[in-house]
């Protein structure tokens, strides 16, 4: 047994489609160390997003287990799940997924609001870290794609999570902007573990390690 930050063993996930259970992940064994910047690659439909959702506790596995810092999270209660999402992981999505009615600053402060944290100075720090201090009062619709993704990254790291999960963070951006985002993520690894899904080999090579998924299994 490894003492990695994220330790998955025999991880399975199946979906109910009509009367049938379709297994998408067929027993994933995986270790990710503290402070690693890992890329997950694989063909469309290979189960990358599914795996990431399990690590982020957006979904529960149907078999196997995930340990975070040695704690099994697969059986935690709904309440603990909320707390885990608040404090242990941060998400970055391909479509940015910012709240359209809120400004950049408010979007970044939202996790603090949910967690009940009164001071919002962390939101300003996070925005500074993604070099957007000059765009605090802009709504998402008033920001470029790259800027929106940087706001989303700021939102993901505002609670100083142990793990940052990014599902195709550059998928909706041009090459140059994408590279900037990757180097931004790369710069975070001193403070947190970064797990990124990407289809782009060039970008994946900027990370420490690449995990290949094929048909719901890790390809060695």
């Amino acid at each position, binding site marked *: 047994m490894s003492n990695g930050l994220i330790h998955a063993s025999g991880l399975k996930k199946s979906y109910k489609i009509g009367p049938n259970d379709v297994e998408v992940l067929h027993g994933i064994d995986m270790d990710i160390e503290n402070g690693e910047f890992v890329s997950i690659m694989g063909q469309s439909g290979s189960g990358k*997003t599914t795996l990431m*959702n399990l690590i*982020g506790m*957006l*979904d529960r596995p149907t078999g196997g287990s995930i340990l975070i810092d040695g704690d099994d999270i697969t059986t935690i209660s*709904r*309440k603990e799940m*909320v707390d885990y*999402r*608040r*404090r242990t992981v*941060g*998400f970055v*999505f*391909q*479509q940015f*997924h*910012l*709240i*359209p*009615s*809120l400004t950049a600053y*408010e979007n970044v*402060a*939202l*996790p603090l*609001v*949910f*967690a009940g944290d009164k001071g*919002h100075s962390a939101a300003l720090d996070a925005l500074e870290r993604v070099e957007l201090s000059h765009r605090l009062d802009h709504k998402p619709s008033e920001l470029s794609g790259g800027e929106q993704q940087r706001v989303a990254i700021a*939102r*993901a790291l505002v*609670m100083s999570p142990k793990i940052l999960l990014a*599902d*195709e963070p550059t*998928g909706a951006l041009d090459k140059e902007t994408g590279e900037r985002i990757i180097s931004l993520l790369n710069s975070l690894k001193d403070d947190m573990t970064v797990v990124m899904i990407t289809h782009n080999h060039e970008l994946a090579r900027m990370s420490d390690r690449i995990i290949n998924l094929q048909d719901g299994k890790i390809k060695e």
Partner: protein
Amino acid sequence: MRLYSVVLKDVFRRKAKLAIAVLGIIVAASAMVAVVTTFSAATESLYEESNNFGANIIVRPQTNSIPLIAGSTSLGSISTGDNYILESDIPGIYDIENSANLGVVAPRLYGVVGLGHENVIVMGVDVEQEQNLRSWWKVNGEWLSDPNGTEVMLGSDIAKPLGLDVGSAITLEGNGVDMEFEVVGIVESTGGEEDGYIIMPLSVSQTLLDKEGKVSSIDVRALCNDCPVSEMSLQIEGALPDVEARAMSQIVQSEMAMIKHTQTSAMAISIITLLVSTLTVASTMLASVNEKIREIGIMRAIGASDHQVISMLFLEGALIGTIGGSIGFGTGTLLSYLIAPLLGFAEPFPMWELLPLVSGMAVLVGIVASIIPAKRALSIDPAEVLRSV
């Protein structure tokens, strides 16, 4: 930033879509406010009118009837007594237990006198008391003012055929005396008996009719809406010798019952409107949850608890309720100003005490309507809605 400001910003952004729900609440709230405001004014004015309509209790001399019996067969009865109340007995009324509730005590004397070739009915009144009782009369000219003056007011049915007007002089032939009077006022038709009367000060009529110190009846007005009128009647009968006192509150009561009945129907319609508006809000909120399915998924992913998701929806519902309820109070009040004259009711007045009540109810509707949408929101699976396409 707080959770509520997130909701406020969201509601503000989608205001056009939420307008339907707000409108639903406005309709329901204004219907209820209009009903309550209109009928409150009507009921209130009826209470006032019930005073104007005349006395609550009418006191008459008791008719002593002696049964005529021949053997074992009743032949009916004959009335005796002189059918008058002594004026000197009247102060006794003020000694009854409920004397605090006595408003007006208006003695009257009726009699027939000659006017030219006609016989007319004279009504002698206590000038001051009678004027209190008949404050709603429209009089062309002046009211009687001098309790001993030889002046009269004419009912409209007398004035017109005889071509009399304010300022005319008439001579009335009473029991043995002829007296000259000046017409000081004409009472516009009230639809009542007084249309055919000549009205003059009590003491003058006693002289004219040769009934010194006597009155035919006393109209007593009680000064409260829920006075124990029949109780007071009994007390008056006990206080004055040989009188009959009868409560006259039935008219008012039946009219009040009619208003209450109309109000109940109107309220029932309002409550149906309220139910319909609850459905409007519920369906709008459900649509709004479906529209925000992704946003709710995002919020869950970044740490919103079940409780926070529900609170945000309830807050949205409550906000819709507050806005709709407050506007509805305004439109409802305005509406009552339109309705009241159509129903022939008194002019309404804004009932501010309804504002918190209506707002509270509207907020409740907003929250109740949010229950199903909230359940729907809780069932949202963030993994599913955030999946990149």
